[in-house]
């Protein structure tokens, strides 16, 4: 004062390490063990092929609507790589690659898209929440989980995902503000895939970057090339380290692109040009990472073929497990509370009587027939 332009203390850094043709910035390149690099590639490929399989299952009526993650594999996997099993992992719904890396069985994820609660049941031993549908609501849960981590004086962190569209929700704002106030060990990744169904990024918010929203909460942010898994890993590791050491939360905007449909129920031709997709196709995170690994002599066509074959077998197996799943028709009464109430017992009996007395099952509840 009296009248001056103020300086803003928070900072936003941008990072890219691997360019689309697989050239690496040597100064920024993280030193990762070879087996990790190959493992990451295998997970990305698994995710891509899982997408294709589910797409087909959906088209054949064997699962319900499916939301592919094609093109965004690096932008979830790179961050999941930075945390361990004690840390919490909170996905939105386009983090298949990260979920596979965390250890979710393919069959479980298939069962979620197949309309079964067992698909929302995290595997034992993982501190993971399941897929979350109400956009951005998971940010509040993750904030609370990281709060518990801090209150319990663990050294654990929470990694949570949201889309570009999700940043418009009140839940995102409130969660970020709390994270800032309590300096929570929270890493908030925003998968900015340029679209929220038909709403393009520029119509979602007037802020030129999403990363800069962190300034509103008093902490720093990264904007990374989300199709560059090395950039995701570097930013993720720095944010996780900061969180673990008590330095508080970080927002990471990962710039990526949804190469496919929003879900199998969507027709992107209604709202976006093919040219735009064509432009992004060469920036595919798999192409880029593959080129990098090839230059490093870690990947050859022979290895790729072998990997694909391994994954195909796993997908066949997962499909069989998922389609073999038989859900009880009435078990949904059993998990409303730890103990069934008298009213629920009555209602369950009512239904059982109906189902027993020759009432034709009104539909198939097996994965293979829905």
């Amino acid at each position: 004062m009296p009248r001056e332009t103020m300086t803003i203390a928070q900072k936003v850094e941008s990072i890219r390490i691997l360019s689309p043709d697989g050239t690496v910035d040597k100064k920024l390149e993280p030193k990762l063990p070879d087996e990790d690099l190959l493992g990451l590639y295998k997970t990305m490929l698994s995710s891509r092929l899982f997408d294709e399989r589910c797409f087909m299952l959906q088209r054949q009526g064997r699962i319900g609507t499916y939301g592919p993650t094609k093109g965004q594999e690096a932008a979830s996997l790179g961050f999941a790589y930075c945390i361990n099993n004690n840390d919490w992992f909170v996905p939105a719904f386009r983090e298949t690659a990260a979920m596979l890396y965390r250890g979710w069985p393919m069959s479980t994820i298939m069962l979620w898209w197949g309309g079964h609660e067992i698909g929302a049941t995290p595997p034992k031993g993982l501190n993971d929440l399941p897929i979350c549908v109400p956009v951005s609501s998971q940010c509040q849960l993750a904030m609370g989980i990281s709060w518990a981590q801090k209150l319990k004086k663990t050294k654990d962190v929470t990694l949570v995902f949201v889309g570009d569209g999700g940043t418009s929700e009140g839940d995102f704002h409130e969660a970020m503000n709390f994270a800032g106030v309590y300096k929570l060990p929270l890493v908030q990744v925003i998968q900015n895939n340029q679209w929220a169904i038909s709403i393009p990024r520029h119509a979602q918010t007037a802020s030129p970057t999403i990363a800069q929203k962190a300034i509103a909460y008093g902490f720093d942010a990264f904007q990374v090339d989300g199709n560059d898994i090395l950039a995701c890993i570097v930013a993720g590791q720095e944010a996780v380290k900061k969180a673990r050491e008590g330095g508080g939360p970080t927002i990471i905007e990962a710039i990526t692109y949804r190469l496919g449909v929003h879900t199998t129920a969507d027709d992107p031709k209604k709202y976006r040009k093919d040219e735009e997709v064509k432009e992004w196709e060469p920036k595919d995170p798999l192409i880029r990472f593959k080129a990098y690994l090839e230059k490093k002599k870690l990947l050859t066509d022979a290895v790729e073929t072998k990997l694909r074959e391994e994954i195909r077998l796993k997908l066949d197996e997962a499909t069989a497990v998922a389609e073999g799943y038989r859900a009880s028709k009435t078990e949904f009464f059993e998990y409303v509370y730890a103990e069934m109430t008298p009213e629920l017992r009555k209602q369950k009996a009512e239904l059982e009587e109906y189902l027993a007395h020759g009432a034709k099952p009104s539909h198939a509840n097996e994965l293979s027939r829905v």
Partner: protein
Amino acid sequence: MPQMTMVQAINLAMKEAMREDPNVVVLGQDVGQDEGVFRVTEGLLKEFGPDRCIDTPLAEAAIAGGTIGMALAGMKPICEMQFDGFSYQSLHQIEGHARRFRNRTRGRLSVPMVMRFPYGGGIRAIEHHSEAPEATYAHWAGLKVVLPSSPRNARALLRAAILDPDPVIYMEPKAIYRAFREEVPEAPETMPIGKARIARAGKDMTIISYAASLRAALEAAETLEDEHRIDAEVIDLLSVSPLDSDTINASVRKTGRAVIVHEAPRHCSVSGEIVARIVEESLLYLEAPIKRVTGFDTAIPFFANELTYIPDAGRVVKAALETARF
């Protein structure tokens, strides 16, 4: 008279209102370029442009609150919640503002808005896309809560909702969005909000229902007639707030027996209210306990099992027979 689906009928009602009144605008996620995830807003952007058919960012409370603000400022906005399950994100704006302004300003300000959304289960959708929240809205005075059951009444009721001087929550049973076609008159028509319809006349028992469940009720009535010689009257409520007690009670006084059918969970639901209204007015006419065939007091199961939860004709028949044989 053209034949159309409910989706087309709702679309038509919006177009008619938008042509007549420049203050009518439509807003919501993906309602413009994408024409709505169910194509309910097809053609609106093209015909009326981006100032009348407005794609919004992803924030339900802002869509609702912004709509209330527009209505306060003299417009006639129609907002869409993309699914029933996300209308919860905006409840505080509807509860705290939409329903209160007329009363708290002794009529000086009012909120002539419509909030519409796809309602209920049955289309194999993922979590949070199959909710039946009508009781939550109906409990809050100041709102009207409308649930059409066919293309023709969907169009007439949406017109009534748009013309209504007060906020109307308009729930579209998505399971029957395209399930059947119906003749719809050329000229715009309207229906009074709060008036139920006798969907099938009968004398032995009253089946009360609304929205997509009406089909199970009607199918059950056929079975009861064909297989059990029970002549059921079926009431289609169309609105659960206001609730048409008169039509309900007139029927129950005639039949002495009632079954209520809806897909929402049972506890503290519309069916409880209906029972209370019948008991208050017509207890002495009752010849049997009133049965409720509803969603159970659980979350609706994920879709592989959702039809076990949603009442079907078989469950209605079973309850009706128990009622008849009481």
